[in-house]
């Protein structure tokens, strides 16, 4: 029987909220096909029943068992031990398991993510139709269905340097909630204009598209390309495009559009990002055009129906 050794963080917050604790080693049997969460469960069953760990579905659908495994944020239930062994190569040392580092510690591997529920509450609910007679096509649905596949594991928030290094939890909504805002902003039935709050209340400009969130997303959502950049583009269109809105743009130009733009798009570390960002902006422009077209078609259809009735 194969054995595996885990080095697991065991600890609690001190009075100021900072984690205190130690890494403790556990060695248990390893069966075929096990995932990291199975090993944690075996440690609980055999050695440490009080080892705190949050989990629910064990199938990658609920987003509860987020942790940092060998330094990489991931879902413990979807991380196979075979892959961990492969990653570690010849290195025999223990597998390192820690809680998400950006959130306050509760105990051991459990963190306090209540911040997320506070942000969620600040987002205005959908302003949908009163009468149930809408139609929209799969092409429109596809775009937001991607966002709606988010399982709220918070790995993206945990990884984002705006949170992790700068703790901007009060000023910045974090990748998860920009995905949520994008799903509303691009929702075919929502009539709310969300751009002002996305810019001012949720602090989108803190994001400088380093793509870390997208890399860790277990649901495979293209957070950067499909949510963040399109939202940034919409902010630019709404506030800074002289063709779309000459008066607003003038006002904003004098109040520092250059710093806004440079913060967003120029100072990115990776020059490749700029090119991708430009492409994504172009794509978003044509999508906005497409959406406008669909919207006017829909209005026309409704009018048509009204006329015939």
């Amino acid at each position: 029987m194969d054995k595996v050794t885990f080095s697991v963080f065991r600890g609690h917050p001190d009075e100021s909220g900072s984690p205190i604790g130690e890494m403790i080693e556990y060695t248990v049997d390893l069966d075929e096909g096990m995932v990291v969460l199975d090993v944690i469960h075996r440690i609980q069953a055999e050695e440490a029943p009080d080892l705190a760990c949050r989990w629910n579905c064990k199938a990658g659908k609920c987003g509860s068992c987020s942790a940092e495994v060998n330094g990489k944020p991931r879902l413990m239930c979807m991380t196979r031990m075979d892959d961990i062994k492969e990653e570690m190569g010849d290195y025999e040392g223990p597998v390192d398991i820690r809680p998400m580092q950006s959130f306050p510690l509760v105990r051991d591997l459990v963190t306090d993510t209540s911040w997320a529920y506070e942000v969620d509450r600040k987002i205005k609910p959908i302003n949908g139709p009163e009468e149930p007679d809408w139609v929209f096509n799969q092409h429109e649905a596809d775009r937001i269905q991607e966002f709606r596949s988010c399982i709220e594991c918070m790995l993206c928030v945990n990884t984002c340097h705006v949170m992790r290094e700068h703790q901007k939890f009060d000023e910045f909504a974090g990748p998860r909630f920009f995905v949520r805002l994008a799903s509303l902003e691009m929702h075919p039935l929502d009539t709310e204009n969300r751009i002002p709050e996305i810019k001012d209340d949720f602090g989108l400009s803190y994001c400088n598209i380093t793509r870390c969130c997208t890399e860790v997303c277990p649901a495979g959502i293209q957070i950067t390309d499909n949510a963040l950049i399109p939202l940034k583009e919409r902010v630019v269109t709404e506030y800074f495009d002289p063709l779309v809105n000459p008066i607003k743009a003038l006002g904003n130009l004098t109040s520092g559009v250059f710093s806004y733009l440079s913060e967003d798009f120029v100072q990115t570390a990776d020059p490749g990002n700029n090119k991708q960002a430009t492409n994504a902006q172009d794509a978003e422009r044509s999508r906005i055009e497409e959406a406008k077209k669909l919207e006017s078609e829909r209005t026309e259809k409704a009018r048509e129906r009204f006329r015939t009735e």
Partner: protein
Amino acid sequence: MDKSYSEWDFDVVVIGAGGAGLRAAIEASSNGAKVGMISKSMLGKAHTVMAEGGAAAALANKDHRDSWKIHFRDTMKGGKYLSDWRMAKVHAQQAPDRIRELEQWGAVFDRTPEGKTSQRNFGGHTYPRLAHIGDATGLELIRTLQQRGIHTGMEVFMEYTVRHLFKKDGRVVGCFAYNRSDGSLHLFRAKSIVLATGGITRCWEVCSGSWEYTGEGHALAYWTGAEMGDMEFVQFHPTGMIWPPSVKGILVTEGVRGEGGMLTNSEGKRFMFDYVPEMYREEFADTEVESSEWVKEVVAGKLATKRRPPELLTRDVVAKAINSEKAAGRASEHGGAYLDISWRKSEEIKKKLPGMYHQFMELAAVDITKEPMEVGPTAHYVMGGVRVDPITQETSVPGLFAAGEAATGLHGANRLGGNSLSDLITFGKIAGEHAAKSASQVGSFEEIDEEEIDTVITEMLEPLGREEGENPAKVVEDLRVMMQNKVGIIRTRELLEEALDDLDDLEVRGKNTMSPGGRVYNPGWHQALEIAAMIDVSRMCALSALMREESRGGHTRDDFPSPDNSKWGNLNSRIKQVDGKMEIDYTSYPSIPDDLRNLLDSEDLVEEE
């Protein structure tokens, strides 16, 4: 140890934050009640997120021939005529509005070419009926309700577990809970309570349920004197993952078969043709040619003119068929059956079944667009639960309501796939509405007896204080293995009698477990506290299974392998705690009025009488 507790007052307390609980809380709030919602997990993580295939509602978007009447008929037939027809009617009539309402609230189901809500085929449903989003419909449902709910003013208590319901003069007046995260204690006074606590399938070793499915809602109702019903009927979903061992039980959606997935045995034979029950023989294809023509029509978006493949028989039938093939020595490599969808285009599979594609790729290293899956039965759903009034969802205890999997009535002896999500939103709404009304008729909050509170607290803290005792994980593991072996898919008198004896032993062991480590987020302590509920729900299941000497839907007796309509055709088991003892008797729903009876299949009914 510190026995202090916080106190809260709410008009309506909803226990459980899955689909039914959230829908009930939204409705109670909109009826003017001050609502507190208690959730064992974080908000949005409840078991509803695991639902895959879809929510059944006769929208008739994909096939204009569908209507609530046919949905009613399918539900009654699938439940082997043990459902409460009044609930089956309300459900079939109201589910379409509940689905439309979800879209109004932001849900984005897959679309038809005309831009309406698309619908998919599922076992036992005559027409494509399940609104869905890929194979992650539960996530869409819970997220939509969660995002609606947080703006309705309800207060949410996340990671709290309810331990006890209080009664005064026969009416429920509050409950006691602890916070799993920090170990603090909480008293909730309430004018009415909604139980929306989901199911019990964690009592079996191979199950599709999360850790939450320990049956505490069922047990709380039972302990407080409510009538329970139909507890022998447990649905073993035919297709759970079976390999590798650590993923055993994880659900493989019925949507795979709805999209054309074929079941084969070790000899490569599509064995389901051999298992079509008499009552379904006219509705299902009897050749592979006809089956594949049906699939072609459906995939092309045409109205089906051929009969459907036998893979889409009801879940009880398919699960038993896989079991029989295994018994006959024709199992797949790891003891199940093969389920193959790889004949369809790779991109179609990834679009329609993205979750299944990733689940098999990541957990089993199987590419389902190229090779078959291996599947086998997994404990998935309990049809039984708290008996409720079909109009209000109130239980036999005044002020206590139940909805969703915690309640019984809609599904009879076997639930149709897709009827669970529609059950949650239909009856969640009704329970919330009537709980709010009931609360509005109660003047003030009742004071709760200090002594009773003290007893609850003392019992809760016992495992933490014990100097020696078993690891609760061991007791739970033994319970689950025992239930798997003795109260599983195929049951016999001997095994069930043994199970009841074993449960007595396990109960003693469960009362002597030890949980070192304090009150802050201590999973060992949480588990120790769950055992009593698991024991009593397992006992209800074993007892009612022992008494029902026939086979029907989700209850199969090897010693009584056929349905016995003359004796059991319209008898529903009823369990109640009397003087601390579990007592069982039988009851029937009122007879079906003629207009509804005419919707049912006359031959089946003749058989029933």
